[in-house]
């Protein structure tokens, strides 16, 4: 199984590069995972808005929010989310926010 080391902590990743233990997430982990999802350059305020929304929803409900809810609550259109996270909300954004990979018919 793959892993990365962030600030001296070993973070285990599943075969798709998602965190195996979402509790170990912190902002430095998000930054370290960014290049694996085609997010280049610094994470901007807009990136953090999406990441933090996903993160907080996940901590409260144990799952990613509906994509429509994500766009509504962050004020970003789906296209804008794709501009921020080229691999999309279910993959890039969820991975950077430390959520498990959404599974099922997605």
């Amino acid at each position, binding site marked *: 199984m793959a892993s990365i080391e962030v600030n001296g902590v070993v973070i285990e990743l599943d075969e798709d590069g998602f965190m195996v233990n979402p509790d170990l997430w912190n902002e430095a982990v998000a930054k370290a995972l960014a290049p694996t999802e085609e997010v280049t350059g610094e994470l901007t305020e807009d990136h953090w808005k999406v990441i933090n929304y996903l993160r907080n929803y996940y901590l409260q409900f144990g*799952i990613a929010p509906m994509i*429509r809810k994500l766009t509504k609550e962050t004020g970003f259109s789906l296209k804008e989310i794709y501009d921020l996270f080229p691999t999309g909300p279910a993959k890039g954004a969820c991975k950077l926010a430390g959520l498990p990979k959404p*599974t099922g018919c*997605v």
Partner: protein
Amino acid sequence: MSAIKTIIHLETDLHPIPVTTTEPEKRVERTKQLFERMKNQCRAVVMAMENCTKCGRCAKECHVYLGTGDPDNIPAARADLMRAVYKKYFTAGGKLLGSFVGARELDDELLEKWVNYFYQCNECRRCAVFCPLGIDTAEVTIMARQILVYLGLVPKFHMSIAKQVDKTGNNMGIPKGACIDSCEFIEDEIREETGVDVKIPVDQKAEILYVPSSADFFTNFDTMVGAAKFFHAIGANWTISSEILEAGNFGLFFDHDFTMKSHNNRLVRIAKKLGVKKVVQGECGHGWRAARMYTPSLSGPVPFEITHIIEEAAAAIQRGQLKLDPSKNDDKIVTLHDPCNAVRSSNLMEEPRIVLRACVNNFVEMYPNREKNFCCGSGGGILMEEMIEWRKKVTQVKRDQVRATGANYLCAPCSICKAQFPVAFEGYEKEVPGFKIGGLMDLVGYALVLE
């Protein structure tokens, strides 16, 4: 197990499937028992094993062979992977002459091929429509995957779904709190759009239990909106259940014995608990097959009807019960992708067309269609990340079908199809601006005039 090299990730922990993993050195012996059982119980597979004339008719009907060009993906060659073992055990020639007549044990080398090629079959049954002998290679694939379960070889992706369903009752793992939060959000959105209070009851005693796909609570928002508006419009006494928020039943694809059966049992248990007279399945091709074709047969007689939301919508339209304004969909040229499991395995053929004609003014058929339609390229649950390049390849024929219609809305009333098409049609908006992939209830929802 590491001796087996496959194109997909396998899972070693099969919980909740109650099989004890077979030690590699005991596999051949175990296989023999499994084949004996198959021979006694599965007529369709035995018929396929005994009868292929190698006429070659099926080759050009399988989109997987067309897309990959790999001769092992010809349906007859795929079935031959099982036939080799069948011959070894059950034919005089095979017993006597062995490899001279292509008969062999399921050794590691063949086992590797089994995993690789039975997980490159979409179980779409298109080959069966054209085979002069009626050989259904999808049945062979399903049986092969079931045998692989007993040998302890299951894709990680399928196992992760079986585990989620066991824990939460849906593929995505949506807990009750998130389900309620999502329903409230949908209600707010409908109110904002229409000014009408449409309720989505959760875990209530009702006449109808609606079983959506859990993907409707993630990506396919408009499908759930359409369903909620529809039930409101017909004045239904309905509910969804947070314990079975899943029309899909991946067990159909790889494990009838445990995964499919336990999902069906869950459906029966919850429908009884809620006292419903009818279970209405949402937009999911294979889930519809599992619910309709295998629920009473595997779980015993049930005290309720099992129908599909598209049948319900078509019936309501024919009764004149829906007020629809098809001009709401005038920005779309719609074509219909018939999901294989709906159209080839459980007879959902004319109903989607009745619904479409009532909801849209511009509907164009793709060719071939109905029972001759080509699969989306992800059937049989081949939605894994590691298969993405393969999924693009096997779907070329689908792109050609859709391109020829000029449609800008690809209607695919099946969650797997909806998940596959964004991969298959990557970059297609450049050809067709505004190209959209969506469901059928989505279109009903756009056209419905609520009061």
